[in-house]
């Protein structure tokens, strides 16, 4: 987490920007006031969309500095998830109190309070509380289990499917591991709460398939023996499933697809 924050993330892209102009107009030098104000700022998904659509930083740096975009998306998805998950004003108040108390101990309070460090710490802490409240939401593989299953695929012999399958390529396994680790780093606990890696499947040509499930969508990531990545994104509604397929994707395409999977919670 801290490593990500140590990158050059400009303050113009802070999460506080969601709140609109009143956020900056009412800032003071009192960091506690700012935190409180930030939490009490109404948060809606429309604000996130407006922010994504209008923020110059996001528009111009998504290719050159993808990690910045992922970090920001992580804030946005995370906060929207958080606020939609809270079922009453009481639980919101409890959450704010708990996080504020926790921050006083965990984060050195600085006069420039509206920083990404504070924002991400708030977000992480909030997710932690939600995780404790609703652990049963998770139904996917943990990162450790997924990596172990990938290692086990190395042991599959030739013809493991009895139809002439090839052994699984070390390239495909390495690429799959890289995708899992980097996605979980980029999206943090959202991966467990909103989107689950449901399984790691061998492919008969020696490749590997990763399958992710979100609230209203699914994603199949197919990694060929030479490491090429194919994506199959499946939008799921009550009466139909819509498929979108693409080949030769970059790691950023994978991130974008996972981000879209997270977004899918707002699609129905």
């Amino acid at each position: 987490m801290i490593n990500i924050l140590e990158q050059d993330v400009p303050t113009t892209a802070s999460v506080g920007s969601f709140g609109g102009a009143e956020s900056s107009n009412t800032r003071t030098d009192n960091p506690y006031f700012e935190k409180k104000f930030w939490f009490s700022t109404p948060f809606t998904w429309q604000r996130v969309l407006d922010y994504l659509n209008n923020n110059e930083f996001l528009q111009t740096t998504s290719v050159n500095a993808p990690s910045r975009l992922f970090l920001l998306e992580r804030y946005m998805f995370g906060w929207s998830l958080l606020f939609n998950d809270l079922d009453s004003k009481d639980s919101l108040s409890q959450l704010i109190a708990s996080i504020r108390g926790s921050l006083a101990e965990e984060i050195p309070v600085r006069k420039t309070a509206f920083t990404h460090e504070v924002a991400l710490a708030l977000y992480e802490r909030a997710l932690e509380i939600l995780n404790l409240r609703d652990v049963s939401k998770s139904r996917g593989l943990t990162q450790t289990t997924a990596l172990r299953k990938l290692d086990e695929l190395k042991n599959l012999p030739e013809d493991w499917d009895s139809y002439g399958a090839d052994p699984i390529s070390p390239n495909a396994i390495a690429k799959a591991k890289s995708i899992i680790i980097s996605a979980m780093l980029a999206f943090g606990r959202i991966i467990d709460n909103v989107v689950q890696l449901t399984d790691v499947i061998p492919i008969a040509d020696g490749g590997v398939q990763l399958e992710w499930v979100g609230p209203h969508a699914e994603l199949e990531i197919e990694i060929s023996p030479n490491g090429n990545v194919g994506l199959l994104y499946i939008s799921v509604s009550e009466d139909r499933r819509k498929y979108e397929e693409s080949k030769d994707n970059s790691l950023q395409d994978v991130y974008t697809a996972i981000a879209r999977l997270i977004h899918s919670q707002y699609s129905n």
Partner: protein
Amino acid sequence: MVFEVRQIEDDDELYRRIPPNYFKANGTLSSSAYKLNGRPDREISANLAYLTTVEKTLENRPNFGVGSLIARDPRSIGLEVVHDPIFPNNEAHSLIKGTSENAQCAELAKKTKIIKEPT
């Protein structure tokens, strides 16, 4: 002598033998169950259920699982379902023909009901 080739009705059930690795941890099937060498299998073998049993479908592959599809399901995504008996060994043998996209494999996997887990 050959077997009679039957007309497969929309309501007819088909059995598909599936390798253990294609059963996911969450109890569903991977789309790979309908691929051959990593690509959509253009002629997917299945057995017409009323001419066979789960045990016969698993002949020589006792550790595999079995999934069930209703003929209407592949047809609803543009695939052809035909009876293709193999004399003298498998009168029930049938084919789901025309699969060319991963999306079709995913849709078939989604619609497959698992009737026997692999062992």
